[in-house]
């Protein structure tokens, strides 16, 4: 072999071997793609592409009058894409300056944040939540690469109003209590999905493509809660609790004809806008979850059972012991006072325990149990609120010898406030018991009704004749001779029953009481059934004095609201006492004062010039001399009419958010904004006086969602 051919053969031998390398590379290319491809592409999916959800807007919760109890506040997140805006550009300076005008941070903070961002980041968050004014100002800058994103936060427009009914959401917008929890699935909607790219550090650095799935907005709830009635109830309940130095309390108002809950309040209450600040116990809705021994209010069961079974005569006389108590199977049955001889009607209206238990002992335990059961005791009312308890109604075989007499007066039985009002509402509704409910209808974002509730009758709890006999007795309760004289409202026929129950704790009855009153009005055509319960009132243990007086305040104010409630007071009575005393005019604008006086036919003359009434003769409440006109002295000073620390709320309608803010700030109010754009409604309303420093909520016309999203995804 020659040298040359030796070289050639050696070279081509190597050439052959060298071909093994590309062959191996081909093999690996195929192997990685085919054999391992799926697994590797899976890994790619998990590391490079991710989805973030586009939050759906949670449905609103409305009251019966159309006011929004719970809605969403739009909060604005501000971010920049340094790749588009740059890191040190003039635009950055403008963004930082605008932002710092609306926040407590300075310009350099934002500039540093942008400069220190990772080099390839396309999404640097500057502020997580800025006010709408900042949002609008930033929007005006019109800078590409400035990313303004809207996010929703739950907002309860009226703060603590109906908080126990409405409930609240947690930081993830998940309903945690009340309607928010019960109807969470309906309210929450379905989040959309947005595809994003992530870098090796798992940071989002770019939004890619169009949103993969648009969010479906949550449905709204239209409730039966009337926020005006609710506000009255809450106010009076709180005032009554303070007056009577009670620990806590509950009030429920229900429409007896339908079962619609018009108001439901508990004290103490909480502000669902910041539920974390409230103790857990206070968040509980006592109205449906407290199981208590009711006391005398339970006598309605005894009365119905006795009348239906014809165990009592209406002319029958019941003797009660002079000493005021009686032994039954070794236990002392006591009346609040020695009551002497009573008719059946008086047994109930004066609430004699001794006579009631005597009547009850005429019955078979089974039949009494059945009547109590029929009235809904011991079973859930199935109201559409979470956390309802069933109470406890012992079955006859569980009873001891003293169970029947004591149960007949409301001991040895546990009921919830909801059960009690349902029972009395049934009495008010000619014996037909209605299922209580809070949500009237479910509607979509355009207001189309998706579900409409029809009132559901549960059962007939008593014959109409029985009811006809019972109602006058309950009316007698709310009379000068009954136990609830404090609940009387002039001109309004009210039927009801008081209740006072000793608290059973640690195995024995304490010298602590629960006082309650349950009633309905107007008796001719009942529109409202009200239950009021106070825990441990200190002024008196009696339901008539404590709960009854709260009932009175509530009933007075509600009936005043409602034109359909005709007070049965004769007309001439009004004419007689109307112009006798001077109305309070001081502090009013002259215009209003003159309208008031003209309406009542009171002659008057003004002294001096001005807008406001400074002084009046005679003074408010004093008798008017029919021969002498009422003198009113005018002034331009508003100091008298507007007390120290208060200011009048301006009308903000049709102002833009910035103007509204300015106007409110100038009067010392805080502003809370819902939505953006121009103001179309506000709360409280214009003209009201309010303490400075309080918050006025204004609602702007919200921008459409599609518009807002075009900002976020580019």
């Amino acid at each position, binding site marked *: 072999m020659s040298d040359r051919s030796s070289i050639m053969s*050696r*070279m081509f031998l190597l050439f052959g071997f060298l071909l093994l390398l590309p062959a191996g590379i081909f093999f690996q290319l195929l192997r990685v*793609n085919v054999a391992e491809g799926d697994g*590797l592409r899976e890994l790619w999916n998990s590391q490079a592409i991710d989805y973030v959800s586009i939050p759906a807007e949670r449905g609103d919760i409305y009251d019966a009058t159309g006011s929004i109890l719970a809605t969403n506040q739009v909060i604005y997140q501000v971010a920049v894409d340094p790749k588009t805006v740059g890191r040190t550009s003039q635009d950055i300076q403008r963004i930082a300056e605008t932002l710092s005008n609306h926040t407590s941070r300075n310009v350099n903070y934002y500039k540093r944040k942008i400069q220190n961002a990772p080099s390839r980041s396309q999404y640097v968050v500057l502020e997580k939540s800025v006010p709408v004014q900042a949002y609008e100002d930033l929007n005006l800058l019109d800078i590409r690469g400035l990313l303004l994103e809207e996010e929703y936060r739950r907002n309860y427009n009226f703060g603590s109003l109906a908080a126990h009914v409405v409930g609240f959401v947690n930081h993830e917008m998940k309903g945690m209590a009340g309607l928010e929890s019960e109807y969470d699935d309906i309210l929450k909607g379905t989040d959309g999905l947005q595809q994003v790219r992530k870098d090796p550090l798992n940071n989002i650095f770019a939004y890619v493509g169009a949103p993969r799935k648009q969010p479906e907005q949550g449905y709204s709830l239209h409730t039966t809660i009337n926020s005006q009635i609710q506000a009255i109830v809450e106010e009076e309940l709180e005032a009554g609790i303070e007056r009577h130095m009670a620990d806590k309390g509950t009030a429920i108002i229900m429409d007896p004809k339908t079962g619609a809950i018009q108001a439901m309040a508990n004290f103490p209450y909480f502000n669902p806008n910041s539920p974390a600040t409230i103790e857990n116990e206070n968040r509980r809705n006592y109205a449906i979850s407290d199981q208590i021994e009711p006391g005398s209010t339970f006598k309605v069961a005894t009365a119905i059972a006795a009348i239906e079974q014809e165990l009592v005569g209406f002319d029958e006389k019941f003797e009660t012991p002079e000493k005021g108590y009686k032994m039954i199977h070794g236990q002392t049955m006591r009346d609040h006072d020695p009551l002497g001889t009573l008719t059946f009607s008086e047994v109930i209206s004066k609430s004699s325990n001794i006579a009631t238990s005597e009547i009850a002992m005429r019955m078979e335990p089974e039949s009494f149990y059945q009547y109590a059961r029929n009235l809904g005791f011991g079973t859930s009312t199935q109201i559409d609120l979470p956390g309802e308890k069933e109470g406890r109604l012992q079955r006859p075989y569980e009873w001891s010898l003293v169970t029947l007499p004591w149960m007949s007066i409301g001991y040895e039985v546990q009921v919830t406030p909801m059960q009690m009002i349902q029972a009395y509402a049934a009495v008010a509704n000619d014996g037909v018991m209605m299922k209580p409910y809070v949500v009237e209808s479910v509607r979509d974002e355009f207001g189309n009704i998706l579900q409409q509730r029809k009132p559901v009758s549960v059962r007939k709890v008593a014959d109409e004749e029985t009811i006809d006999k019972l109602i006058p007795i309950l009316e007698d309760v709310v009379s000068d001779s009954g136990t609830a004289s404090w609940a009387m409202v002039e001109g309004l026929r009210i039927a009801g029953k008081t209740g006072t129950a000793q608290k059973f704790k640690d195995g024995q009855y304490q010298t602590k009481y629960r006082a309650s009153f349950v009633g309905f009005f107007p008796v001719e055509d009942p529109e409202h059934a009200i239950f009021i319960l106070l825990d441990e009132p200190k002024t008196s243990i009696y339901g008539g004095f404590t709960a009854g007086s709260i009932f009175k305040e509530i009933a007075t104010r509600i009936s005043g609201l409602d034109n359909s409630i005709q007070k049965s007071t004769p007309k001439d009575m009004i004419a007689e006492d109307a112009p006798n005393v001077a109305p309070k005019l001081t502090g009013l604008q002259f215009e209003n004062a003159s309208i008031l006086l003209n309406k009542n036919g009171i002659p008057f003359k003004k002294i001096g010039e001005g807008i406001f009434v400074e002084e009046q003769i005679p003074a408010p409440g004093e008798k008017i001399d029919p021969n002498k006109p009422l003198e009113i002295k005018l002034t331009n000073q508003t100091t008298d009419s507007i007390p120290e620390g208060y200011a009048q709320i301006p009308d903000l309608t049709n102002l833009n958010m910035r103007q509204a803010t300015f106007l409110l700030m100038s009067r010392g109010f805080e502003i809370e904004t819902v939505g953006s754009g121009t103001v179309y409604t506000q709360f409280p309303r214009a003209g009201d006086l309010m303490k400075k420093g309080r918050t006025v909520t204004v609602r702007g016309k919200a921008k459409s969602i599609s518009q807002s999203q075009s900002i976020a995804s580019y």
Partner: protein
Amino acid sequence: MYYTTPNSKVGSIFGTTKDELDAPDRSSDQVLLVTIIGLMIFGCLAVYSSIAFFAQSHGTTAVSLVSGHAIKLLIAFFVMIFISKINYRVLARFSRFAMLLSWGLLIVMHLYGDVSWGAQRSLSIGSVSFQPTSFAAIALILHVAVLLYEKQEYIKDFKRAFLPIMFWVGVTFVLIGTEDLSSAAVLMGICILMMFVGRISIPQLSGLVLIGLIGVAGFISTSTERQSRIDQYVAQITEINDQNFESAEGYQAQQAHIAIAQGQLFGVGIGKSTQRDFLPAPYNDFIFAIIAEEYGIVGAISVIFAYLLILYRGIAVIARQAPDVLGTLIAFGCTLLISLYAFVNAGVATGLLPVTGLPMPFVSYGGSSMVFAGAMSGMLLNISRHIANIKTRFYNG
């Protein structure tokens, strides 16, 4: 004249004969030239796709880096054309000088070199920085070819042929290897293969390879880090999907595989790579993975075919038909260096080979390796211009 006599040998290297100054009979190998230009242009695209992250982290833009890359390509191209005009036998005369110069540069680099952008040190002369390693590689290949050519008469002689050649190879290996072991190992392999082709006795070479293997085994067993790297390689060959990588190499290999799997048959499209964010030096060591991702198996195989074409033209055409042993050996060495670098780069990306940091010639981002790849192809092209002479010479001789 293909057969050289001792006398004519001395003359051909150090003297000027009429034959050496003959004008070449034909133009450069057109297939080779077009392939190289094609790879260079394709490389610009691939670098542009993969360099965005690097550009951002260095406060510049992909466009400016790619422009820089294109300028280096242009320099490399002119170097290639310039060298292709110089008779390889003239160049061969300076091989010993180039060798000594490269050693000097390597020593200076060890003492004063800047460490920048990874492990490979470079020397800066003014604003131009270059890597002496690349220069040493080309000098060594040229010089080994010259030595083998000179010693053809007594090539089987251990003392006169094997040892002197091994002296140059060994010293260079040590000088490069202390800095960049994988480059040194590949270069050493190329030299051994050249010695094999240059008719060094097989028992002598076998002994060398045996000693080399023992050295490698000892080298690996003395370091747990190197052991785990081998374990990692074994794992990567047997099971690609293993997610519990403990080493950076394992992570890199997996990310490269994901890139390849992501590309499937036709790739995700130009500039749409996502794996460039997850791979280190995607514009250099892992550029093949990015090519596979953006252009799919089809694109990756096309690139491999381009290097196969270079390998074929370089060995089966140019080395085979070179006018003398010197031309054959230089052509063989240059071809081998270019194609082996490319295959090792692709082999690393596809998981065929353990992770090393070799660039893909003409394609990867990086200046001096580009210029020296240009110089090597220039020599190859020059030899291709003398093919006609040989043929006539063979027929005549």
